[in-house]
């Protein structure tokens, strides 16, 4: 494994941590947190895919030659908005489940 892909490995590790949280934790809120960890890890991966050694932010200025890849940034921006939507929906479901099943029972 080339050392350059270290960051990819970190992203994948985070992905697995999030996945474990979703699978093994009984609490609904922790499951939602797990999903957020997974989302963030995918963002980290996508952003690092778009990197370029020595590149600067993709804002066109005279005198700068190398820019990082803007497309993954766009993809991440959109995926983030989707993540916000999913989290909000999951939270509202969790809240409603707590409400209907009584505050004491926070597992499902």
């Amino acid at each position, binding site marked *: 494994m080339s050392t350059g*892909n270290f960051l990819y490995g970190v992203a994948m590790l985070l992905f697995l941590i999030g996945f474990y949280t979703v699978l093994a934790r009984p609490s609904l809120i922790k499951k939602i947190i797990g999903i957020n960890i997974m989302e963030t890890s995918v963002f980290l991966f996508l952003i690092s895919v*778009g990197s*370029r050694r020595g590149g600067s932010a*993709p*804002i*066109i200025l005279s005198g700068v030659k190398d820019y990082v890849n*803007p497309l993954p940034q766009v993809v991440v921006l959109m995926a983030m908005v989707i993540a916000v*939507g999913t989290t909000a929906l999951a939270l509202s479901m969790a809240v*409603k489940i707590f409400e209907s099943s009584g505050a004491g029972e926070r597992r499902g």
Partner: protein
Amino acid sequence: MKKLGAIFLLSLCGLFLLAAVTSLPRMGDPENPTNSLVVPRYLEKGLRETGCRNTVTAILLSYRGYDTMMEMVVLFTALAAALAILGRESLETCCETFVLPSLLVRMVVVIFVPLFLAFALYVITHGFTTSGGGFQGGVIVATTVIIYTLVFGLDEMVKRISPGVRMVLESSAILSFMLVGLLGIALGGNFLITTTPTLGLSDFLRRAILLLLEVSIGLASGAVIISLFCLLKKVERG
């Protein structure tokens, strides 16, 4: 038992991912296909073709404008979904027993809220030239309103930004994309072609259209996040 199953699944998944990571091209190499195949066009011609110095904004609003429109649909869907589950926010305010925090906190918020909003406006309108854009600005607007709500209470906020106003703002982005898109068809080109130079619209008009899209994205994403916050806050209050 459940944990054992989870660990089994994870190790399976981990093996696949490890195999993937080791065989990916080296990160950050200028020779990578990610840096050489499609992207050069955006970086070389983006400024000329769309008039946006910020390539991210150029891709977001022009090259992949369809994706951005659909993303606003995703936000709208999330809101509609949350409403369907938690029940509609009533259009009137209701009385609430709320303890105002100390004078110091209130003063700080009163002073900083306009500044935050001005900053949000700057981020939205200057997304073309520097980092920033509709979503980012919209989120700043939403955060500001949430800070205000936490200090002054939900009713104070609803008095200023009523659910009715928010409802119009929430659909504004999708509708303005639709409008701009249909304008493109009416002018004889493809959907959303109004943002490209091929149609021969003046630069000023194209900038105005992009600004309209950017501002409506900002307002819509802000309004959706505020509404989601209100929905969850209302439930918490019971």
